[in-house]
Every structure is written in C-alpha cells, then in structure tokens.
C-alpha cells in the first residue's frame, strides 16, 4: 500500500537500471555490485557515473564510507589496521561548535 505509487511516473529504461544499481549499492554497503557489472560489461562507465552521482545525492556519507571501505580492502596490506568504528568515520554524534 505504502509503495503503491512509487513508480507511477515510469522511469526510462536507463533510469530504471540506475535505480536498480543504486539500490544494490545501498543494500550491499559496498562497491561490489558496481564493479561486478562493470567487469561483466553489463554497464559502461557512464552508467556507473550516473549511479554514483545518484548515491552522492541520496546519501553522501554512505558513498564516502563504501568508497573508503573499498580502498582499504583493495590497497591496504592489513585492512584490520585501518579499522575504525563506522559511526566515528561518519562523524555522527560529534557535532561541536
């Protein structure tokens, strides 16, 4: 019921693909869905760019987090050394004036 009209304004095929990819990124909390689809040639760099731009508007903190996680996992010899609590990374609860 709540989502009865969610797609009442039919998105284009490209938009639908972008929405699907962004939803996968949000659900997985990492860049794997994007990387997998790029590797398989399912999408091109422009589609990947669209998805990342939408995610940047949707939740920039999440985009930063999953990008950082991906960089740490890919490039650090010991990702465990880079571990920080997620809330601290996001800066939540640290408002100061």
């Amino acid at each position, binding site marked *: 019921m709540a989502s009865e*009209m969610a*797609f009442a304004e039919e998105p284009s095929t490209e*938009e639908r693909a972008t929405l699907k990819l962004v939803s996968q990124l949000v659900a997985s909390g990492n860049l794997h869905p994007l990387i997998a689809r790029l590797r398989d040639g399912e999408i091109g760099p422009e589609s990947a760019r669209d998805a990342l731009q939408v995610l940047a508007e*949707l939740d920039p903190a999440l985009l930063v987090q999953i990008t950082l996680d991906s960089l740490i996992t890919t490039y650090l010899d010991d990702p465990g050394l880079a571990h920080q609590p997620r809330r601290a990374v996001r800066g939540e609860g640290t*408002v100061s004036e």
Partner: protein
Amino acid sequence: MNRTPARQGIPGDEDSGRVADEPLSEVSLLRVWPDIAGSLAPEERGAAERALLAPLVSARDQDLAAALEVEPGDAFNFVLVSGTVLKETTLASSSALELLGPGDVLAPPLSATRQLESRAASRYLAFGDASIATLGMRFERVAMRWPQVSGFLHRQIAEQAHRASMHLAMLHLPRAEDRILALFADLGERFGRVTPDGILIDLPLNHELIGRLTASRRPTATIALQNLYQQGLLTRHADNSWKLCRKFSMELAGLEPATSWVRSRRSPN
C-alpha cells in the same frame, strides 16, 4: 491569461463598479490576509475591506512574466490570492525552485538594466490555476491611512524570507530523504489538511518537481521517495495528492535543529 484593468478610486471609495454576475475581477486583501482585520478597529473594517480591493490577474500553468509586467510606479508588489506559484531562480547552469502559496508576495520583474546587472534571474510560473492581486498606488494610500496594513505586509515578507532561509538550510541536509521529509513537513504546515491518518497535501507534485525543490535529480528523488513509502512516512494517492503519515514529526525524523544556541533558547531555563 486574463488581466483585469485596475479600477480607479481612492481608499474608502464605496463604489465597487462591479456588476453582480461579472466574474471576480477584484479581491479585497482583507480576505487574502484576514489577520489585517484583527489589527483594525471593528468600525473601520468595512471601509478597509472596500479600500483594500485589488485587481486580479489569473493564469494557469504558465510563465507569469507578461501577467506581472507593469509600468514603472504602477505596482510595487503582487500577492498570490489562490493557487500555487513556482519561483525559479537561475544562476549559471543551476536553478532553484520555491513553492509559493496564497498570501505570499511576488516581486515585480526586474527592469532590463537590473536583469543585466543581476547574477541570478528569477521568474514565476503558475502551477495549475493561480490568481494574483496587484498592490499598487491604491494600496499605498490605504497603508497611509492604516499603517498597520504596511506593518502587516512587512511581517509577511519577513516571514517569507525566513521560509526561504529555511528552504536554503533544508537544501544543505546531506541525505535526499531528509531533504524530502523536510520539504513535506513544510508543505504540510502550509498547504496540509489534518486527517485521522496523517496530513493530506493536495499538491500534484511529481518526482521531477520534488527533485528540483530538494536539489536532487529525478532518479534520486524516486529512490528517496520509494524509501519513504516503504518506511510508511509518506504516501502518494492516485489523485496525485500526498499524505505525510501521522507518526511523522521533525523530532522523530531527526530534523530538529541540532545546534547548541537553538537548544539553549528553547530550554525552559
């Protein structure tokens, strides 16, 4: 578009000059801004209502540039009497939208010189049917007789400026869902009707428009709205009206002001 010529007359002139079955071509600003009446002595209200008659312009889904075009000195402001108007302000390749409702003030278009000097250009677009009253010389004379009227106009403009600032702050919320919730909280307050299961907002806003009102592109607005539907915070009806659910509050959504100076001012101590 339908422009009605301004009537001649002075404040207090009791000759309406209007035939009973003639379509409404004027409106008393006392009906648009009923709060003005409260600031007037009861015996003056009748005269004020007549003196505050203003010519009406009506339009539907169109740029209001032509409707708001006036000779210099003819009109200094316009008031939205009914319907909604979108104010679009463009700077470089970006544009921002504001939604104006009944009682809101519209500025006359900038002169050609001012437009060249200004870094940003604004235009008004009727969103559906809109009726707009002109505040001209007659209003100025009324304001001289009843200074409370210009006091009210100033407060109205200040309130509108505050709302624009609030909109600006809303655009700084990083998450699209939060921006949309803050937008609907504002729309609910201004245009909503309380029903048993939420606040009904009868505005046919589509995803594109919601995106533009919240600095998001359409696909972002679509995903954020989808999430809000799933959380049961917002519903869209088949007639394109919206409902902000009863359990929604700015506090619950984490959208209350978080800075210490606001908290200290709101604290009972």
